[in-house]
């Protein structure tokens, strides 16, 4: 992709004057930096001490310290510590992603390689569940969870996050399965491989990058989810976003502390997203864009 890009750019760039190129280049940098600034500011503020952070004239030059990170980690001043929330988030995110993949892979198979007659309708059903606003379901979910005594239980969020991500995963995996060369699948049939063996030894190795991308998308959405978590959990299943909104104090300096905690909360997804940015667009567009 990169090589084609370079070639593609060449002609337009040759026509532009050096000045135009310089101006456009600078503009690109400025615009991107403006968009990136809040993220940068979060990271920088997290590295400050409270006196450095809580000022009306921002301190750009300061002695970076990990003190606030440490206090977020250990919990200070009667505040809860982050690790238990991180533990909930990690557990819930991983389990829900696993469930999604287990359910989505066979479904995507039945919508691509050996499609059922009404595959369009089935796909429409999956995407339509994403369109229905979650607020339309939150009240019964709350009442059901209360009656089943699973309010504030981790398994409740695991199930709900799986349902939240399943449609995206089905769409995404379907687009990857459509790329598996027909001849490969046919060869497997001729060899008499059953569905399971065909899946394991032929299809999975081919689509494993796609599977990883799908898992990443599910991970991102589950990790960042807030609405269900804030309404259905309090302590035992509370995830990282709940931790973040929980310690905001009406008074007293807390900006460095907040920024440090926010940075830790964002880090897993940021790193994963940066590493897999080429795959992101495909996942986010539910497989419609390659």
């Amino acid at each position, binding site marked *: 992709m990169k090589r084609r890009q370079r070639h593609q*750019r060449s*002609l337009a760039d040759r026509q532009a004057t050096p000045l135009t190129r310089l101006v456009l280049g600078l503009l*690109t940098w400025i615009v991107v930096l403006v*968009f990136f600034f809040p993220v940068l500011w979060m990271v920088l503020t997290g590295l400050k001490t409270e006196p450095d952070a809580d000022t009306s004239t921002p301190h750009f030059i300061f002695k970076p310290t990990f003190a606030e990170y440490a206090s977020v980690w250990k919990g200070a001043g009667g505040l809860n510590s982050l690790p238990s929330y991180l533990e909930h988030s990690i557990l819930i995110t991983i389990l829900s992603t696993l469930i999604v993949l287990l359910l989505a892979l*066979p479904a995507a198979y039945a919508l691509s390689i050996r499609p059922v007659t009404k595959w369009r309708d089935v796909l429409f059903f999956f995407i339509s569940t994403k369109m229905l606003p979650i607020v*339309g379901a939150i009240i019964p979910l709350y009442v059901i969870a209360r009656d089943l005594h699973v309010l504030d239980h981790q398994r409740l969020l695991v199930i709900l996050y799986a349902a939240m991500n399943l449609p995206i995963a089905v769409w995404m995996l379907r687009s990857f399965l459509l790329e598996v060369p027909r001849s490969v699948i046919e060869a497997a049939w001729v060899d008499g491989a059953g569905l399971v063996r065909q899946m394991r030894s032929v299809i999975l190795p081919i689509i494993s990058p796609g599977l990883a991308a799908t898992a990443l998308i599910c991970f991102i959405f589950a990790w960042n989810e807030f609405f269900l978590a804030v309404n259905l959990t309090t302590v035992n299943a509370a995830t990282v976003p709940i931790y973040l909104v929980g310690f905001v104090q009406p008074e007293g300096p807390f900006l460095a502390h907040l920024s440090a905690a926010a940075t830790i909360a964002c880090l897993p997804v940021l790193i994963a997203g940066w590493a897999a940015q080429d795959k992101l667009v495909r996942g986010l567009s539910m497989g*419609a864009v390659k």
Partner: protein
Amino acid sequence: MANVIDSAPAIRQGRASTKRAGAPGAGSWVRRAPLVPALVFMFLVTQIPFVLTLYYSFQRYNLNFPTAPRDFPTAWNYEQIFGDHIFRTAVLNTVLLTVVPVVASVVFGVGIALLLNRHVFGRGFLRTLIISPFLVMPAAAALVWKFTILDTTFGILNWFLRPFGLGSENWIGQHSQITVMTFLTWQWTPFMVLLALAGLQSQGEDQLEAARVDGASTFRIFQRITLPQLRPYIELGVLLGSIYIVQAFDSIYIITQGGPSTDTTNLPYYIYQTAFQAYDIGRASAMAVIVVIATILIATLALRAVSSLFSNEGMEGR
């Protein structure tokens, strides 16, 4: 498993043409089987709550009065809603707080993608930076915006604006709608950048070159070649962006709490307030039903327009 192998001929036939796929008979249930777990799961988790929402919406059900008669069925909740001016405000706010960020993020997204599609120093690095707002946890970003950027005293935005004579704006208190729209635009622009970049990269160089040789101006090339090429990608961005932004909750809950007054109360936030602060399950459910019906109507129309989601190949194959 034996059945699977028996059905192999039917499969080959099905694969030859997906439109004629699914020969009736023994093969069809074997074909459907892998779908069943996912469909059952989705049905249980997403459809049953909606049916219950419908059921609650016809009851006078308030958690504050657990023993009061519920009068099922009653249209009381719906009557209440139609006379509720906050509900009307919430509808208008939802439209405003969805349309503006979607349009703005598409415009910014396409613009930045065009800039990034040129030969720029550090292009890969810039792309990495620009997707970051989309990756950060919305709750974390909203908190950081609220306290370290928008805050009247400690926020860095006012410090930046001080040279322009705007040093003490109360962004959250007095410009809440603009603030929320800006935040949502900031959050969603990266997604539109990624989509538009994918669209630009699928563009054929031959066509562009031919146009340039013919002496077409840059603007004309953009208007006649690039924009039509980008159209399906923009449509997709509008559709997916709307699906998520219309449900915006995190940012409103954290930054403005729907205020001041009801200036940034959108439907998700109003339903949340009605259900979890006023404990009026019946009325909140009735609002949810209205939202769901409206969403279905709008979404069906929108989805039919964006055909690319239902093509068998990705957009590159168009």
